[in-house]
């Protein structure tokens, strides 16, 4: 095993976004949600919106390492939620507890590389920062029947008593999985994997049918 060369970077960093002239295509791009939103119903029990092209960053570090926590806080503007199943939000940065040594940070897409770089610059010791923006997309589900749709899809308890605003769980969702965060009273954020997005979109349309589905662009 070769020794760490303090000169050379120990991890490879790359700004993965092209310039603004090239339009990115979110996983549900081809579903043309804009048209669906325009033509579809305006009222219903469930409201769906793809929050496309966000910046997702996986951060892994030792939650007992105060120095690392401090460094992360400095970059993110909020301290990492170390309580299991919690999340924090500050401005356009939100952080979800995923595992005792793992967090999912979501920022506006254009900010991802800056945050990624800043984290690398600030952190030391054993940690991992991975830009996973292309691998995930965010579905916002709201409305008075959003909870019913969740109950049809996931085996976790989503009753308000067990699922307060801010709680985040990674769980089975239909036959895929999702990171579910309660963003507001009737508002849920689902972070889902790109390759499953079509399936989950199909599933959600089906599960919402009886309540009426409103698509927002």
């Amino acid at each position, binding site marked *: 095993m070769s020794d760490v060369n303090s000169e050379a970077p120990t991890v490879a960093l790359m700004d993965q976004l092209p310039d603004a002239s090239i339009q990115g295509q979110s996983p549900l791009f081809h579903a043309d949600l804009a048209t669906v939103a325009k033509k579809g119903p305006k009222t219903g029990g469930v409201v769906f919106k793809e929050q496309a092209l966000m910046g997702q960053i996986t951060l892994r570090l030792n939650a007992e390492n105060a120095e690392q926590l401090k460094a992360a806080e400095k970059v993110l503007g909020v301290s990492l939620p170390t309580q*299991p199943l919690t999340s924090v939000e500050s401005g356009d940065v939100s952080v979800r507890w*995923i595992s005792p040594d793992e967090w999912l940070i979501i920022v506006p897409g254009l900010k991802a590389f800056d945050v990624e770089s800043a984290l690398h610059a600030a952190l030391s010791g054993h940690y991992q920062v991975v830009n996973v923006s292309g691998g995930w997309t965010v579905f916002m589900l709201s409305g008075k029947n959003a909870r019913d749709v969740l109950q049809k899809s996931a*085996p976790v308890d989503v009753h308000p008593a067990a699922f307060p605003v801010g709680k985040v*769980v990674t769980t*089975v969702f239909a036959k895929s999985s999702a990171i579910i965060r309660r963003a507001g009273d009737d508002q849920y954020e689902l972070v889902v994997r790109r390759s499953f997005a079509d399936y989950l979109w199909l599933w959600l349309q089906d599960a919402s049918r009886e309540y009426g589905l409103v698509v927002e662009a």
Partner: protein
Amino acid sequence: MFYIYCPYCGEHREEEEFHNHGQAHIERPKDPDSCTDEEWGNYMFFRKNPKGLHHEIWVHAAGCRKFFNVTRHTVTYEIKEVYKMGEQPKVVAE
């Protein structure tokens, strides 16, 4: 269907989120190359498979992806305790 307490998430979750990984506390031999075929075979394949209290590994596969240990009764399916990797069980067969 089991309701399993994940010691990392700090709450019970449905069995669908977990995978079972068999008997716990089987350590990989420190020096595999000096093991006989019999010793290596025992490590890989031979199991207690008890009828009664069983210490086993589960992983919270669809959740936090952490592995942990469970002491479970293999007849009544009661889960007696859940403990983290590297820890020893408190509930043991007599």
